[in-house]
C-alpha cells in the first residue's frame, strides 16, 4: 500500500509542506529526529497523516516508511483520515472528573451525536476524550484547537457545541 502511494503521480505532500519539514532539519543532528515535527506539519495541513504521506516523509528523512509508521502509530494522536475542522478533547482525568468532567463528555457526545474518537457528519467537530490537559485549575476543561474551554457544565453543552461549530467555520480548510 505504501509503495503504491509512493509511485503514484500526485504527491501527498505539497511543495509547501515539504519546505516546512525541511526547515526543521538543521535543528537536529539526525534526520530521524524530524519525524515528529514532520508528522505534526502534515497533520496541521491535512488534519490527518494519510498513508500516502508516510513514504514521502520517509524519503525526506532518509528512513524506511516502516520507521515513520512505527513512530506514527505509537502516538494515538495521528489519524489516517481527516479529523473535523476542530478537534476537541474533553478531559476525563481526576480533577475534572471530580467536577463533572465525565458527565460533560457524555453530554457533548449526545449533543454532537458522535462517540469520542468520531467526527460529526458535517465534518466540523471531532470529539475526543483527553487525559489531564493541565488546566485542572479550570476543571472541568476542554481543549479545542488552541482554545481552552474552562469550568464547563452539562447545562452549557448546547452553547459550547455552537461555539465549537463557529470555531470550525472560522478555521481555514
Amino acid at each position, binding site marked *: 500500500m505504501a509503495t503504491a502511494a509512493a509511485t503514484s503521480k500526485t504527491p501527498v505532500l505539497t511543495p509547501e509542506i515539504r519546505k516546512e519539514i525541511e526547515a526543521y532539519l538543521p535543528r537536529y543532528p539526525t534526520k530521524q529526529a524530524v519525524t515528529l515535527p514532520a508528522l505534526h506539519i502534515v497533520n496541521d495541513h491535512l488534519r490527518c497523516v494519510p498513508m500516502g504521506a508516510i513514504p514521502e516523509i520517509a524519503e525526506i528523512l532518509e528512513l524506511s516508511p516502516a520507521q515513520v509508521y512505527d513512530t506514527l502509530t505509537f502516538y494515538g494522536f495521528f489519524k489516517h483520515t481527516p479529523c473535523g475542522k476542530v478537534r476537541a478533547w474533553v478531559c476525563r*482525568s481526576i480533577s475534572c472528573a471530580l467536577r463533572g468532567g465525565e458527565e460533560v463528555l457524555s453530554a457533548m457526545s449526545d449533543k454532537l451525536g458522535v462517540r469520542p474518537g468520531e467526527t460529526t457528519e458535517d465534518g466540523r467537530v471531532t470529539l475526543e476524550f483527553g487525559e489531564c490537559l493541565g488546566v485542572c485549575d479550570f476543571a472541568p476543561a476542554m481543549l479545542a484547537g488552541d482554545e481552552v474551554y474552562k469550568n464547563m457544565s452539562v447545562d452549557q453543552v448546547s452553547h459550547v457545541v455552537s461555539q465549537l461549530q463557529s470555531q470550525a467555520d472560522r478555521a481555514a480548510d
Partner: protein
Amino acid sequence: MPDFEPVLLANVNKPDSHTLSVYEAGGGYSALRKVLKGMSPTEVIDQVKAAGLRGRGGAGFPTGVKWGFLPPNHPGPIYMCINADESEPATFNNRILMEQDPHQVLEGTMIACYATKATTAYIYVRYEYPTAYKRLQMAIDECYAKNMLGNKILGSDFNLNIYLHRGAAAYICGEETGLIESLEGKRAWPRIKPPFPAVEGAFRKPTVVNNPETVANVPHIINRGVDWYKSIGVPSTGPRDPGSYGPKLYCVSGHVNKPGCYEAPMGITCRELIENQGGGVWKGRKVKMAVPGGISMGLLTEKELDIKLDFAGPGTVGCLGLGTAAVTVMDETVSIVDYLHNCCRFFAHESCGQCTPCREGTSWSERIMHRIKAGKGRFKDLDILLNISESIGIMPGTTICGLADGAAWPMKNAVKKFRGEFEDYIRRTNPAGFMEEHAVEALELVGIAGH
C-alpha cells in the same frame, strides 16, 4: 507563617509578563549576565549544588549533582532537554510558568546550559499546551534578536540554540528517556538505565533532562545566593534526606473553593495548602482524601493531611513521594471506587506497553476496577489489586520505568487505607457474588462495555 514573597511567580500578574521588556524591567537576565561575566561553569554547578536545589519534575534528584555526572572534558556536543511534557494528572505549574513567564524558564535554561556546556537545548512541550508553545517561541525569537541566543551570547564565548519540540499527547514522553526517544523520532519507549542520560542520552551524547520549574530556580540562586535559598524550606530530616529547599509551586484542584497554582516555601502541609491557598473545601463539605503530588504518588487520608509537602513528607505515610506537588482534594461524597477506577484507567491508557508486568498489570487493574464499579466485584479482587500493585514497577524491579510504580501506588494506598469502604461497596452491589473465588467473566463478555 509570615507572608511569603513570591519568587517564581513574582512576574506572572504583571501586564505582558511574557515579554522580554517586562521580564528585564523586573531584573530578568541579570543572573545570565552575571554568570557570563564572572562565573565559570564549575562555579555555577557548585553554587546550585550548595543551594540544595532538587528536581521539581517528580524524582527530586539534586540538580547540581546531576549536572556533575556529565563526563568531564567531553568534546561535545552535550544536550539539554527541558521536560515540559507535564502530563501528570492534576499538575499545571509548568504551564503557568511557560505561559506567563517564559523568559524565566529560558534564563534558567541558558544558565543550566552554560553550567553543563550544552550547546543545544530542546524544550519538549506537550501538545496540549499551544499557548505555552507560542509564548515560548515568541520569547526565544526575542532572545535571538537581542543576541541572547545564538553565537557569542552577549559578547561572551557562550553559544546556545534553543528549539521547541512538540509532543503528541503521550504521558510516557515525560519519562526522561521516553522523552529522549521521542525527540529522536522514535516511539517513546523508555530506555533501560544505566547508561543514564548524563553519559549517553539524546543522540547518544551526554544529556541533562530538567523540569522547567527546576531551571527557573537557578537564576534566583545565582542572584540571591545559597544562604538566601537555604533559608526557605525544610532542612534535612536524616541521613537519607538531603533536605527540601527553596520556593515551590503547589497546584491544588478538585473539591476546593479556589483551585490554582500557588507559590509557598517548600514544606507547607497539605492541610495548609487546602485551607489557606485553596480556600477550603467547596460547598461547606469535609475533605475525605487527597492526592499528594499527582496521582502517581498515591493517596492521603484526611488524618494524613498534616504531612509536610516536601521531599520527605509524603513517604512518611506510605505515599510514593512529593511528585509534582499537585494536590487533588476529594470531599466526603467521593467514592473510593470512582477514584481508583479513574487512576487505573489513566495508567492503562498511558502504559507504553514495553514491559509485560506494566502493560498487563495496568490494563487488568482497569478491567477489575471497571467490573467492581459496575457491581460485579469480589473481595478477592482487592487481593489481586494489591498483588498487582506490589509486583509492577522499578521498586520490585520488574519494569523499565517508573510509570508502573505510579500505577501501583494509588492501588496500594487506596486498597490498604480504604479496604472497608471497598468491601462495603462490593458487598452492597454484588450480594450474590462478592465471595466468589473462581474466575469470573470479563465485563466485555457480559455486555458492560468500558471506556
